[in-house]
């Protein structure tokens, strides 16, 4: 039988305990139909180099663990097929603007610290109803896009404002902030707007759209951020008008 065609993966390697500088190792992986980059990495791990480190969980583009920088773009390894690159050559690296823990696994502490800052949960002030806080399908539709975010970090790593402002909340956290603000059951709009309109929030976004280009779930964080800007500006304006009319 003929040998199956092989794809070659140039994989970023960095072991902080041993290496001073990172390097790339090239591995040959047998091609088969439907082979994803994540599966190719498994192949390497199982048959060629057991020390390769990478993150994954769901293998189905819903957990957000396997975000990487593959052939010049942010992608989920589990959602990207090796065959998508006709050259059969892939360069696989960690997301560029996160600190590397080992190989392809990055440290997302800052990302999740900022996520926590936007209160990523429903806040209700009114007394709980007898059964549940009802949401109509139409009201849910308004936030469908933002609910889809799997917190993979692609948008965050791609954002020039994140690169230059250590405290900038970033596109993912701001998208989630809008997701809760726009939720018909949420009752903390004022507090949410105060958080996102601070010095490290929405006004630092320069509408560069790198985030929207990077998102593997086709979410447009810029859109959510601009909604937050509008709401925040309107709130300022109305509080001025009320103050100056009294």
């Amino acid at each position: 039988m003929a040998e199956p065609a092989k794809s070659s993966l140039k994989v970023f390697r960095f072991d902080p305990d041993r290496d001073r500088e990172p390097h790339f190792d090239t591995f040959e992986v047998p091609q088969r139909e439907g082979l994803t980059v994540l599966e190719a990495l498994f192949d390497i791990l199982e048959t060629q180099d057991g020390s390769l480190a990478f993150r994954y969980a769901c293998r189905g583009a819903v957990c957000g663990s396997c975000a990487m920088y593959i052939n010049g773009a942010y992608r989920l390894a589990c959602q990207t097929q090796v065959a998508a690159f006709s050259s059969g050559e892939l360069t696989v690296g960690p997301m560029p603007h996160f600190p590397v823990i080992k190989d392809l696994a990055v440290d997302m502490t800052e990302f999740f610290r900022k996520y926590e800052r936007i209160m990523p949960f429903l806040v209700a002030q009114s007394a709980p109803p007898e059964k549940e806080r009802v949401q109509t399908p139409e009201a849910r539709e308004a936030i469908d896009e933002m609910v889809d975010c799997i917190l993979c970090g692609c948008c965050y790593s791609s954002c020039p404002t994140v690169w230059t402002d250590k405290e900038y909340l970033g596109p993912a956290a701001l998208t989630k902030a809008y997701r809760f603000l726009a939720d018909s059951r949420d009752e903390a709009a004022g507090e949410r707007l105060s958080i996102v309109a601070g010095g490290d929030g929405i006004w630092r976004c320069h509408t560069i759209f790198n985030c929207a280009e990077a998102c593997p779930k086709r979410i447009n964080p810029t859109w959510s951020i601009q909604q937050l800007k509008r709401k925040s500006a309107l709130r300022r304006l109305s509080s001025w008008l009320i103050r100056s009319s009294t």
Partner: protein
Amino acid sequence: MYRGSYRQRHADLWPTNYKLGMWVWLLHRVTGVIIALYGIAHLLVISSSLLNSDGDLFEDIMKVFENRVLLGFELALIAVILFHTFNGLRVILFDLGIGIRAQKLLFWGLMAVAVILFAFAADALLPYIRGEARL
């Protein structure tokens, strides 16, 4: 233990990996700086008219700007200003909540208008730059 603070930063800073929005944003900064520098130079030149009361100096300086190379720069300046103006409109529209989901289309649409206006400017200036007409 992990001491890793290494980031592979340069990977997505490589220009061939930039998407449209990134290029436009960078160009907007660069053209902004050029326009600011031009503004300063312009004020200096114009204020030279205050230096001597009969205005000879100012006239002499103005003569320098009839130079064809400088006229070429002026045409380039028009391109820079048109880009900055029309992309500036795009950014203002975004802040009003308009066109965010069609940012690329909006960019090319506005640039088409800018190119048409530039064609008018080039049409007017080129004879002077080529030396076929004189001021």
